């Protein structure tokens, strides 16, 4: 009996409720049930659904605007000067580095000055500069185009493994099992997230399907390499965060899922975004390279018939009694210029929309990770409250102990 009383009192000294209370237990159970129902996933799902709708809408808008520009450009093909100017501007844009594109858009507004710089020789020079840049990239891929990419991919995997090692050290106190979150250990969770971040097989597969024959292929490989490098930098920064966590005091909101899990989740999201961006850019590079070749052919065809920034109207040239070969060159050049008009700025505009949507999607998914962390903490809190109020000595237990201590039926007389 003394031991029993001591046991009960010992609990009380720590502020622990000893006697079971059905009302509080019910509230604890309700807290646990309510916490279990908290979920922001429907909001996230709807956000992603809305983003898909917006992406479709914006891409449709861009395609419509592109179609209109194409119609307008075609209508403007009255003189060879105008045709040449349009082709020159489009071709220069494709030769240019991203910094130069804006400048070209400004320069073209001053026709007289712009036209003077659009000689066949000047364009050939710009083409050489462009090809030199591509050649440098090609040379980098020459020793086996996949070697560099595979090397970068291996680096990513090594860095991901480093994060996993740190997760193991940080989450598993010496001699203890790693803490569990939602049925899986933090380690396994981090492993899955880092594996996902370092999994660039799809990009490598795409890279593997490319040759280094065309400039577009080389540029696409360059885009993929850039993407892999960015992924590496991202994983590096996460590694840095991990290092800085060492020695930092414990988060007071210790129920929130581990920093390791959050960091790994965010890493996976950003890695997905970068991979998507890389794929978009690589594919665009291939398309634009094809367009560049068409425009170069256009310049060559117009130059052959001496109509590159030539005098006169297109219609009168087509009516003239030129040779069959010249006629074919003229008509071919107009078709090739039209190809430029079809493309105009649409690929870049669509790329921008896709990238912007990918960025926004990453924000939504990042929010979802944080929300899930809160939800997990609240669910655990609910479960703990339920466990606390569900515990305690129940009337039946007290009765059983007293009955046992009373030695069967002798106690009722004493008690009542």
């Amino acid at each position: 009996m003394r031991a029993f009383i001591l046991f009960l009192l010992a609990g009380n000294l720590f502020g622990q409720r000893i006697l079971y209370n059905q009302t509080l237990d019910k509230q604890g159970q309700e807290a646990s049930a309510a916490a279990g129902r908290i979920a922001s996933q429907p909001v996230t799902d709807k956000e992603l659904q809305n983003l898909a709708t917006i992406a479709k809408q914006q891409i449709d808008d861009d395609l419509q605007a592109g179609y209109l520009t194409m119609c307008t450009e075609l209508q403007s093909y009255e003189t060879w000067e105008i045709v040449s100017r349009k082709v020159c501007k489009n071709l220069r844009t494709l030769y240019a580095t991203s910094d130069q594109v804006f400048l070209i858009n400004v320069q073209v507004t001053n026709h007289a000055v712009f036209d003077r710089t659009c000689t066949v020789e000047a364009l050939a020079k710009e083409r050489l500069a462009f090809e030199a840049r591509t050649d440098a990239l090609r040379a980098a891929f020459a020793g086996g185009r996949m070697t560099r990419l595979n090397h970068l991919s291996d680096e990513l995997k090594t860095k991901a493994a480093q994060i996993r090692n740190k997760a193991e050290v940080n989450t598993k106190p010496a001699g203890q099992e790693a803490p569990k979150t939602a049925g899986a250990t933090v380690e396994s969770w981090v492993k899955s997230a880092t594996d996902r971040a370092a999994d660039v097989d799809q990009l490598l597969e795409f890279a593997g399907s490319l040759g280094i024959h065309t400039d577009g292929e080389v540029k696409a490989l360059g885009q993929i390499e850039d993407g892999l490098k960015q992924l590496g930098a991202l994983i590096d920064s996460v590694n840095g965060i991990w290092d800085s966590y060492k020695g930092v005091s414990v988060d007071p909101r210790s129920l929130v899922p581990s920093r390791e899990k959050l960091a790994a989740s965010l890493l996976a999201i950003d890695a997905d975004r970068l991979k998507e961006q890389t794929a978009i850019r690589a594919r665009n590079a291939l398309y634009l390279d094809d367009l560049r070749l068409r425009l170069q052919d256009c310049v060559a065809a117009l130059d052959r018939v001496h109509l590159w920034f030539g005098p006169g109207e297109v219609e009168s040239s087509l009516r003239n009694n030129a040779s069959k070969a010249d006629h074919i060159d003229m008509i071919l050049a107009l078709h090739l210029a039209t190809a430029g008009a079809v493309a105009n700025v649409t690929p870049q505009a669509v790329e921008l929309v896709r990238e912007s949507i990918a960025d926004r999607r990453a924000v939504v998914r990042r929010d979802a990770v944080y929300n899930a962390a809160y939800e997990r903490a609240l669910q655990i809190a609910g479960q703990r409250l339920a466990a606390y109020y569900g515990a305690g000595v129940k009337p039946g237990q007290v009765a059983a102990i007293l009955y046992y201590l009373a030695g069967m039926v002798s106690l009722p007389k004493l008690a009542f």
Partner: protein
Amino acid sequence: MKAWFAILPFCALLTGCDGRATEFARQADELLREYQKRIDDQIAAATAYYQRAATISAAQAERVGIETLQAERSERASHLEADYRENRKPVSLYRSDLRTYADLDFTRLKAELTADVDASAPYLSQLVTLESNRAVIDAFDKILKNLAQPRSIRDEVNDIQQFIQNSKTEYGKLVCDGIAKQLNATPPPDADKANTLKALQKSQKCPAKSN
């Protein structure tokens, strides 16, 4: 019964002050409010994003509409010029030719005049409305607030009385079961013991089925 009341102060100690649990509930409620704020902010940010996207789309649509007509005029002028010059169409019917364009322009004008005042509305209507599960969060908040409230002495006394009553009931059941077991034992108890047990059974108000 007196003995049961004698253990009442002792029981008071056993209910504990629940200090840690109430504090835990309070902190959990703080976390819940923070979470709610996060969700609200997220929905507000998404809604602002949708509004911007819809405004851009509406502006783009307006621009495309204007430029489409511009392109149409240019294209038709070019066609008609060639048709008139090459005698494919009679010049005297130029008004009829203009009419086809006028119809097109009028259709657009009609659409503009009858459209929603807020040009972004049609784009926004295609999106799913975001809303947090406020009812669930409010319910949880209410429970946590209850649990975070320190319990009054009156509540505690009532709880203890209820606990004692329940314990007594449970105890009575055990006693009655014990008596019934002894009365029904094999071999049966002798007459004196059986009478004592029956008297005890009566005093304990055991239900008839016990024996």
